[in-house]
């Protein structure tokens, strides 16, 4: 099968790769671009740990054809920190002990960012709704919900 040239913005930087037809975005990001922050969990859209933003909208990269992001902007956890500083959401996750094994964390952070980018002061129910496609086995969600609410209200350590 011939390779397809693909160009898009990856965390604010233009990238150009060649993909096989049918390659999903998760594989393109991890294996061709080398961005390992979106995780491979179930590969079927059931766990949420591969979540990325495409033009600001939350997508499961394992179920997104790489070709469909041509010319669009893809954000991953790798682009979240601001220079040497953590993003307030990352800081809030650390402050609130919102990670244990950490495997769901990249997806949780992207889902949370998608929420706060469009709704900076969400209610608790809106936070729950926003992360409802993401599974966490360790935390019981409570610390994650609290972290997102803390980031939204600016209750984040320096």
């Amino acid at each position, binding site marked *: 099968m011939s390779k397809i040239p693909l160009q898009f913005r990856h965390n604010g930087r233009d990238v150009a790769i060649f993909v096989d037809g049918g390659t999903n975005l998760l594989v393109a990001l991890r294996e061709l671009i080398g961005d390992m922050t979106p995780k491979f969990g179930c590969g079927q859209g059931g766990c949420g740990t591969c979540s990325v933003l495409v033009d600001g909208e939350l997508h499961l990269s394992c179920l997104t054809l790489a070709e469909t992001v041509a010319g669009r902007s893809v954000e991953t956890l790798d682009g979240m920190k601001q220079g040497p500083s953590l993003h307030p959401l990352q800081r809030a996750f650390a402050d609130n*002990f919102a990670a*244990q094994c950490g495997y769901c964390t990249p997806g949780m952070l992207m889902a949370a960012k998608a929420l706060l980018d469009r709704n900076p002061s969400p209610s608790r129910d809106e936070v729950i709704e926003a992360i*409802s496609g993401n599974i*966490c086995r360790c935390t*019981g*969600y409570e*610390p994650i919900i609290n972290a997102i609410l803390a980031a939204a209200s600016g209750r984040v350590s320096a």
Partner: protein
Amino acid sequence: MTRHRGRGMASINYPIGMNLGGDPSQALVHSNPSGKFTVALSSIDLGQGMKSVTRQICAETLGVPVEDVYVDTADSDTGPHCMGSFASRGTHRVGNAVMAAAREARGVMMEAAAEELEVNAADLETDGRGNIHVKGAPHRSISTKDVAIAAQFKQGKTISGRGIFLVPLSNVDPETGEMSPATCYAHACLVAEVEVDDETGEVAMVRMDSAYELGRALNPRLVEQQLVGGAWMGVSHALYETPEPYYPDPVHGPRDFVEYLMPGPGDICPHDIAVLERPAPDGPFGAKGPGEMCANPVLPAVANAIFNAVGVRIDELPITPEKVLRAIKAQGGARPQARR
């Protein structure tokens, strides 16, 4: 259709560690020429916080700041032996091994400092901020960094220590069947409140209240994290997860996370936790460990709460809507029990 509320409780007595051929863990501690210390373990931190807790234990025992200690875990090829991270044994077994190793390393460090300050090692103390000084004379002081450099480049000493903690195998008495499978026990009590829908058989968690006695909580935030998260693993075992829903027929087994159910963020409920600290005599700084115990009492408490709500006893896990519904039908309807 009615939703019935019910409350159930369970208490547990949980052994720390296991009793299969003896239960040892080892640790090695050494200083780098920078004056920082490395703890080598082959124990695994799955996210419960073993790295943080062993780091605290090592720093406290050495008498150095916690930021001067690094913990290197989980290389069973090159690290000292560990039985593993299970049976709630990490803090207790590995912590004790780290403590022993740090104690030995501290001895060498104090000897090296004594040589530099030209005093007796017994007259020295650490200030916990990275300095060693003569007792009662804080100006006669040397930094742990300078001690490490002197030991490495001048004295030719390794500031290091070995540690092992072993709970030997307890054999079963052939006459009485008696044995001592563990050296200390943690305890917990949990009350679960549920709502059971008698039309669908669905069980929703309403709230949990619990008390845990787990020795000294060496890192209270990590203990809380473990208890909050672990309770939901318990709920998951009680109500959702099974690889074999129609055992032994494998046909309807789940294939993915869409079919292998777990609680989602919308399923959680408030959980009020009290942590009681009764230091264990043989624990590192009195610690036992929250470990698996955080999930265990949830299962019987939820089963009891369902009985309290609709009067059916389900003794097979997980307690799926189908099982609840069949049991309600079999007894001719929901029979709410007295509220407790």
